[in-house]
């Protein structure tokens, strides 16, 4: 077994809440290493309160067992996952399915003024004539916005 095979297997695991993108697209897998029949996966959780984390961990372990190896999933809570780790392919899949991808992270934490500005693009019509409806949304990682141009509410990934 090679690490490429493991990466390929992990790339087939959908995100439990946005199944259009995979765990590899999401950028939560930092490293994969194989030693004496054990596959070690270094995993960085997204939001600490995200209930999908257990599902992700179990799904990874299951895939690795299916490859005939013993999984060791190491969860790194000291590592700050960032939305900058979502791959370009992952961002495109998000946009195509109606989720506005996150803005790039700047050195300082995002501010309310930024969220209230109109630089965020509607994933449906492409207009930047959009406004913040709620900092919080259906999951910890998303905010709610409204597109004034096509009158469509949409979910915006929080930059973190």
């Amino acid at each position: 077994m090679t690490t490429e095979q493991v990466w390929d297997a992990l790339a087939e695991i959908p995100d439990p809440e946005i199944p259009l993108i995979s765990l590899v697209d999401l950028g939560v897998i930092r490293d994969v290493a194989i030693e004496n029949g054990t596959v070690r996966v270094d995993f960085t959780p997204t939001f600490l309160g995200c209930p999908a984390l257990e599902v992700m961990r179990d799904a990874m372990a299951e895939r690795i067992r299916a490859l005939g190896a013993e999984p060791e999933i190491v969860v790194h809570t000291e590592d700050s996952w960032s939305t900058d780790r979502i791959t370009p392919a992952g961002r495109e899949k998000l946009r195509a399915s109606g989720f506005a991808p996150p803005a790039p992270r700047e050195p300082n934490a995002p501010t309310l003024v930024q969220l209230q500005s109109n630089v965020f693009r509607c994933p449906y019509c492409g207009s930047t004539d959009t406004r913040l409806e709620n900092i919080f949304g259906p999951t910890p990682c998303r905010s709610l916005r409204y597109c004034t141009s096509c009158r469509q509410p949409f979910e915006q990934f929080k930059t973190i």
Partner: protein
Amino acid sequence: MNEQEARSLLEIADDELILGWRDSEWTGIAPFLEEDVAFSSIAQNEIGHARAIYELLSRERGTTADELAFDRSPGEYRSARIVELRLPEGERTVARHYLYEQADATRLERLKQSNDPAVAGLAAKIDREEAYHRMHAAMWFDRLEHEPRFTAALDDLQPLLDAGRDEHTSELQELWEEMTMVRRSQPVGTAW
């Protein structure tokens, strides 16, 4: 981690567990939908932070996160009195949120400078999420800062933030009964 950091981490975890529980009491009954979603999401984050900190502390102490979270008596919690209150009034909930997030930012900033990478890293990760809580609190502060009911709530609650952590409110006992009920009942077939 040094003793002072361990103490601070336990205080944060206890505050976030209890505040998360209190914030979740708005789920389904907040004055309007946006705040229902906001306080539910904040509650989810806070309990996630508490869990990650309990896990870190439990590795040091040779125990488990659940034991730390639920097997202590109410008197052993290190929570601040301000988070323990059941606050059915919207303006008092927002006032607490504003006061708490400011105080929380200060202690997280200190822990981010820790020499222990596990402590500094976790504090930094939590702080990235808290940035959104602070934004939400600041947004409400800007709207309400001249409203007498809101300023009265701030004046009323501030002393409970500053009071020590050795004495608790009677409301912590009630919350503890609710919070630990399932674990204490040991339903058949459970193992924890």
